[in-house]
């Protein structure tokens, strides 16, 4: 059914480039049966050594716990969680904590949020209905990809296509960017100026997989006919081949344009189905299904598997092994090509298990370095010698602020298991409204002055985070006479770490200005702590 047909010399080159890279991978000595984190450190350390750079020290316990929790469960630790982790001298407490977090329901919720952001790219609608159950059962990534292309309306998986079906150019490009790490939009008007491998055929080939998809009422349908035509830069009209990004062209049954009469009939039928709220009939040959199949085939899945590895790496490290994440092509090699190849292969061999990948990455030493660099020149970011400071997502920020603003007794140490999870979920839900006021960070994110004004002057900050109530931090602090204790509790609650001596001294001195009004003192202190960059970023 399928036909390998390289359509031009440039595509041939593209294929050969990929196979050369593959050949190198096979020389790579990292065997398959090693733990992921060991492989990560092996390759990252190798390059550090070659560059004669001594990496930053490992982050301290409080720092590491906060980073790990933000990445795995989407929030900073409570004061009690931080205290317990720091106090524990159990060997293997890090691994134990990571496994406990991954097993929690907040992990699945956070993964769903993160995947939703990645898949919807700020478009309208969301995929949470689909992603909730999918992440809860750790559905393999290749299966999710198939589901999203199959677009079953029952499961909510159709939102990926539905939110883009009105703009097929966007659908084609978003699919390339999100699943394959390849941005072919430049090739829409001309062959890619930087990447000789990417031609107009690559863009319009991708578009061809979606060109028969349409919306009919609440349902998506796919036709059995229709070709994509485009103008070359020479002004010549061409029919786009049904071609995947690797240059592989798929064979398909001959299709002919229906007559006007047939079209009229089809339209009538579709109107009828729309009225009865029924889906259009399935095509006898689905181009979308072809894309799902070809992209996952053994010789073709390099883009698919490497792209998701790179995106997860980006999420956890703040920079992709290939940066930016949508520029995976021979002219923009990975910082650690063997590592990327190994991780991608490992992912495929383990049934596209994202949990396993995430677990492996967060257990590496490369992940757990300090974000502070004391030397003069900070090393090049692609060496991963020092942890990057990453802006929080709206959900991470809002939930963490919420927890920081609550009376620590709301999360007592003895509260565990389901009971505790339930309370956390409540907090996550109550943080959603505020999260909508925060911007989703992109690469090279800049905090807007609108956000700073919001935190300075919006009434909502006072009412959500500085309330004088029994369940709030401010309410708790107000009752405490000793300023040292006030500072100790406040810093632990907001920063999830103890205050350093000089910090405590400065803060106690600050509070002494407000001796006669402990409520104001508490509000001033909590506001100043909560709005610092330490809380705004994952460091």
């Amino acid at each position, binding site marked *: 059914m399928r036909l390998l047909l390289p359509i031009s010399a440039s595509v041939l080159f593209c294929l050969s480039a990929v196979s050369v890279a593959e050949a190198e991978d096979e020389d790579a000595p990292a065997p398959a049966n090693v733990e992921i984190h060991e492989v990560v450190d092996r390759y990252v350390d190798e390059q550090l050594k070659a560059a004669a750079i001594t990496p930053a020290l490992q982050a301290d316990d409080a720092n590491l716990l906060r980073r790990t929790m933000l990445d795995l469960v989407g929030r900073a630790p409570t004061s009690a969680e931080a205290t317990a982790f720091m106090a524990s001298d159990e060997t293997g407490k890090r691994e134990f904590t990571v496994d406990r977090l991954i097993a929690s329901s907040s992990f699945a919720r956070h993964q769903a949020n993160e995947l939703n952001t990645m898949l919807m790219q700020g478009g309208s609608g969301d995929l949470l209905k689909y992603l909730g159950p999918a992440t809860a059962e750790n559905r393999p990534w290749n299966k999710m990809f198939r589901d999203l292309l199959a677009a079953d309306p029952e499961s909510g998986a159709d939102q990926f296509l539905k939110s883009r079906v009105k703009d097929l150019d966007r659908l084609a490009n*978003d699919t390339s960017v999100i699943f394959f790490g390849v941005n072919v939009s430049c090739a829409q008007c001309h062959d890619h100026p930087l990447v000789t491998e990417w031609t107009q055929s690559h863009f319009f080939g991708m578009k061809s997989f979606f060109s028969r998809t349409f919306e009919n009422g609440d349902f998506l349908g796919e036709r059995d006919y229709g070709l994509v035509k485009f103008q070359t830069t020479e002004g010549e009209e061409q029919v786009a081949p049904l071609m995947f990004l690797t240059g592989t062209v798929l064979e398909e049954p001959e299709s002919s344009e229906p007559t006007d009469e047939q079209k009229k009939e089809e339209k009538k039928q579709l109107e009828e189905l729309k009225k009865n709220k029924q889906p259009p009939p399935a095509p006898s040959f689905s181009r979308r299904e072809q894309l799902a199949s070809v992209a996952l085939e053994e010789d073709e899945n390099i883009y698919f598997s490497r792209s998701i590895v790179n995106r997860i790496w980006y999420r956890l490290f703040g920079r992709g092994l290939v940066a930016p994440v949508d520029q995976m092509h021979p002219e923009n090699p990975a910082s650690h090509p063997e590592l990327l190849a190994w991780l991608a292969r490992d992912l495929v061999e383990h049934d596209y298990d994202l949990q396993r990948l995430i677990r492996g990455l967060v257990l590496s030493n490369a992940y757990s370095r300090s974000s502070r660099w004391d030397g003069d020149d900070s090393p090049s970011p692609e060496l991963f010698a020092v942890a990057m400071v990453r*802006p929080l997502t709206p959900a991470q920020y809002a939930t963490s602020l919420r927890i920081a603003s609550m009376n620590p007794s709301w999360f007592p140490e003895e509260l565990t298991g389901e009971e505790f999870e339930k309370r956390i979920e409540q907090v996550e839900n109550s943080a959603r409204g505020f999260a909508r006021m925060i911007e989703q960070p992109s690469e090279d994110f800049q905090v807007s*002055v609108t956000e700073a004004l919001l935190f300075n002057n*919006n009434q909502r900050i006072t009412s959500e985070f500085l309330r004088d109530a029994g369940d709030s931090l401010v309410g708790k602090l107000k009752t405490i006479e000793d300023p040292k204790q006030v500072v100790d509790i406040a810093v632990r609650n907001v920063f999830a770490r103890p205050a350093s001596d000089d910090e405590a001294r400065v803060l106690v001195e600050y509070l002494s200005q407000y001796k006669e009004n402990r409520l104001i003192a508490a509000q001033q202190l909590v506001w100043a702590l909560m709005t610092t*960059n330490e809380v705004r970023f994952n460091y």
Partner: protein
Amino acid sequence: MTRRNSSGGLSDQAISRRSFLGSTLATTAVLTAADMTVLDALQSPAMAEELKRKDKRVIVFWLAGGASQLETWDPKPGRPTGGPYRAIQTNVPGIQISELMPKMSQRLQHTSIIRSLNTKIGDHGGGATLMHLGRRDESALKLPDLGAMIAREMGQIDSAVPDYVAFYTATEGRGGGTGQSGFLGARYAPMFLTTESKPADLSLPPGIGEIDHQTRADLRQLLSNRFSEGRKSSSLGSHNEAYARVRGLMSSEQLFDISGEPQSIRDQYGPTLFGEQTLVARRLIEAGTPFVKVSRAWWDSHGQNFETHLELVTELDHVMSGLLDDLEQRGLLDNTLVITMSEFGRTPNINASLGRDHFASAWSVSLTGCGIKGGSVYGKSDEDGQTVADGEIGAAQVFATIFHALGIDHEKEYYVGVRPVPLTDPGTEPLKEVIA
């Protein structure tokens, strides 16, 4: 709750609080990400030139829905497409405009009319996006709009005033690229006023006095600066910068309040919302805001085109001429570029509802003031206004001309990853005839 320090005057205690933090802060100065425009300026041999352009300003009248060129800048009296209004002679020999603009007709010495736009896109969303971005939208790259690019090129990093303000109180035509900073980031996003004429969160929240508001900000800064030590990140820097701008922006709140303007000035702009927002725009640019857009909606006259335009053009004529007079009196017109534009114009053909429909094939914009050769007309539509007869241009040339008039290199490139993105599409040239 007892409040202190909320009334004026610094108490001794307040002063000591300030000096407490002041001394601590002084010792923890931290380097935040430098503004790239400043760096560019310092590296450029034409540094003086670069710095000079910093006091140039732009006010855009965005006529949402699509203003008719025939009832404004390009009348066709006596033709079947001309409609009921006459053309009148302006104070510039040889140039006529619609009789609905008598005031502008006597002030045309500062204005260049461009009558030959063929922008090809005839739907509101697509047209608005095109005329905001100066180029086709891209699915994969979020492009910055005119205001964001000008804010980026001319705004000051520590400016106490906002550098891009967009009034958009009517709902018509909002969205679709009408206020996006794209890859330039939120730093250059507009302060977008949709419900009120005053921006949100500019004044002290209830329940806190001036001094407490300041000292908690100082404490925040102290803690944040400590945290930033040894951590290099432009996002981190932007967080500190955004907070550092808050006090300045709060002091700009009075710019949005026109109640202190003399009645004679208020009359000059008129009592309409559009007039009042334009007066705020003048106050903003006078205080240093480089870009203000004032949107006036409901130009989409598919029916009753002539009544609609009688009302809207008359208002535009009054507000625009009021603004130009005011700018001139204050010596600001040489530094301020005033632009009228829409997503497209309107059809020469008059439909059965006595309306005019969407028309992108031959329509007009106007540029007035800073860097513009006043009293001129660029391009020509045919005698019925159906096609461009001479000097056909698109949105890109208008943008290049705007940049050029402001002293900005329209070929300057931003980098998105490895991809260069010039201010205007490659190969675009400014209209030399329009530039002074």
